[in-house]
């Protein structure tokens, strides 16, 4: 074993996009290998939990932890990695704010199970549901238990840094890798604990090249209904709900640049308590009407406000979950 600092990456409830994004840093990955000893990275190399368990506490220098806390296995490993790592980075939208898995918090777990195992797409004549433990001659098999609610990493363990994005932009990952390496070489200082790294501290509009004017919106449309979209003008101004104004910068306005509205994967700007609330007030502020009836009819243009505003952030929002989720789960 070399005495290079140890690096780990883990994948909890997430899609794997974060891993791809890491590989997307191209030759930089070699720097990672040159400077680190990769000790644990299930998606890239074979490793067993018990190997990690046997490591010394704090023996891993840097762990990029992606994925949200969907089940007890996720949480166990979260605690494990916390114990073993010096720097634990909440990596990507799932770990940081729950992301799409977090939308499960709009429903009770059993309903989710039903949808997964009883809908027409699932041929399940005998209503078989996964059991958390199952007896076989060889002994008992175990499946992880679903949490009542999807949580963010920070809601389960203490986190050193946050790195938003679905997935984090590769150039940002590269920048972070560089930073850590420079710190190792004593050329740089780590930012204060708890800070957001690999992102800007303004919002997407800051990096968006589109022209912006005073906004007076008489109707909201879905993007496919506005054709052709003016390629040079602010998307929100064209009546398409764009989450850019409230979403942390750092992605270099990737979606608006290619003519798609921002859907908010970089999460809230610095110091914001509730991401959705910012969008509620932002969109309401540009509605150009005074009569309740007219306002309502304009707002009908946003058919699913909750989804629009909380696609990525629900698990980390003030409300965290819908009543149906926690009431049915007998919270």
């Amino acid at each position, binding site marked *: 074993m070399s005495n290079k600092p140890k690096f780990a990456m883990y994948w909890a409830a997430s899609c794997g996009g974060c891993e791809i994004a890491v590989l997307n840093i191209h030759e930089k990955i070699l720097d990672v290998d040159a400077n680190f000893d990769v000790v644990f990275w299930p998606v890239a190399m074979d490793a067993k939990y018990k190997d990690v368990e046997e490591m010394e506490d704090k023996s891993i220098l840097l762990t990029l932890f992606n994925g949200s806390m969907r*089940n*007890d296995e996720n*949480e*166990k490993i979260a*605690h494990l990695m*916390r114990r073993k790592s010096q720097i634990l980075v909440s990596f990507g939208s799932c770990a940081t704010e729950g992301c799409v898995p977090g939308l499960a918090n*709009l429903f009770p*777990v*059993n309903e989710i*199970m039903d949808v997964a195992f009883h809908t027409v797409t699932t041929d399940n004549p005998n209503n078989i*549901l*996964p*059991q*958390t433990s199952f007896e076989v001659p060889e002994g008992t098999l175990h499946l992880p*238990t*679903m*949490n*009542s609610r999807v949580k963010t990493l*920070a*809601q*389960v*363990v*203490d*986190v050193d840094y946050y790195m938003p994005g679905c997935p984090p932009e590769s150039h940002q990952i590269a920048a972070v890798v560089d930073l850590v390496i420079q710190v190792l070489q004593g050329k740089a200082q780590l930012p204060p604990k708890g800070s957001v790294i690999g992102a800007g501290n303004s919002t997407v509009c800051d990096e968006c090249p589109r022209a912006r004017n005073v906004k007076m919106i008489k109707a909201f449309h879905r993007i496919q209904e506005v054709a052709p979209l003016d390629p040079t003008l602010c998307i929100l101004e064209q009546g398409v709900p764009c989450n850019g104004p409230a979403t942390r910068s750092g992605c270099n306005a990737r979606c608006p640049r290619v003519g798609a509205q921002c859907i908010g994967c970089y999460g809230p700007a610095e110091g914001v*308590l*509730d991401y*959705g*609330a*910012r969008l*509620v*007030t932002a*969109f*309401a*502020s540009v*509605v150009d*009407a*005074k009569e*309740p009836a007219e*306002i*309502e009819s304009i*707002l009908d243009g*946003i058919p*699913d*406000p*909750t*989804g629009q*505003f909380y696609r990525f952030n629900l698990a980390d*929002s*003030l*409300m*965290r*979950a*819908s*009543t*149906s*989720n*926690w*009431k049915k*789960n007998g*919270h």
Partner: protein
Amino acid sequence: MSEQFEPVIVGFTCNWCSYRAADTAGTARVKYAPNVRLIRLMCSGRLDPTFVMKALAGGADGVLITGCHPGDCHYIEQNYKALRRFLLLRRTLAGLGVEPGRIKLIWASAAEGLKLAHEINQFVEEVRALGPLNWPKWNDQPAEIDAVKEVA
């Protein structure tokens, strides 16, 4: 205290009309339900939806938002902006299972102490009828694995 459920309601008032309406009600010794705790803002336009969410998530069963009558806003027209936010916020909260009846926007001029008292009583009854909301106190401090129940 009676047996019936006593809702906890956080109220937001503007400094010029509705807060003074509360003063007027007081000066006139108008009696009304004690369930509402008022927070003074300069204008209903100051109302950040975050305030409402924080109140509900923090244990309030309902939120009352009050401002000057349309056209009478001391800042000319900011209460209209409050109205727009309120309407979108109500839709958003509905998506999270918060009954629209739990947040209410009313206009009250400085002179309308009686009206404010009446509206408060009415709202308290409406929320009482909806029952407790008691949003969970999410256990946020990173802790040991919290017990997960069997599901399915």
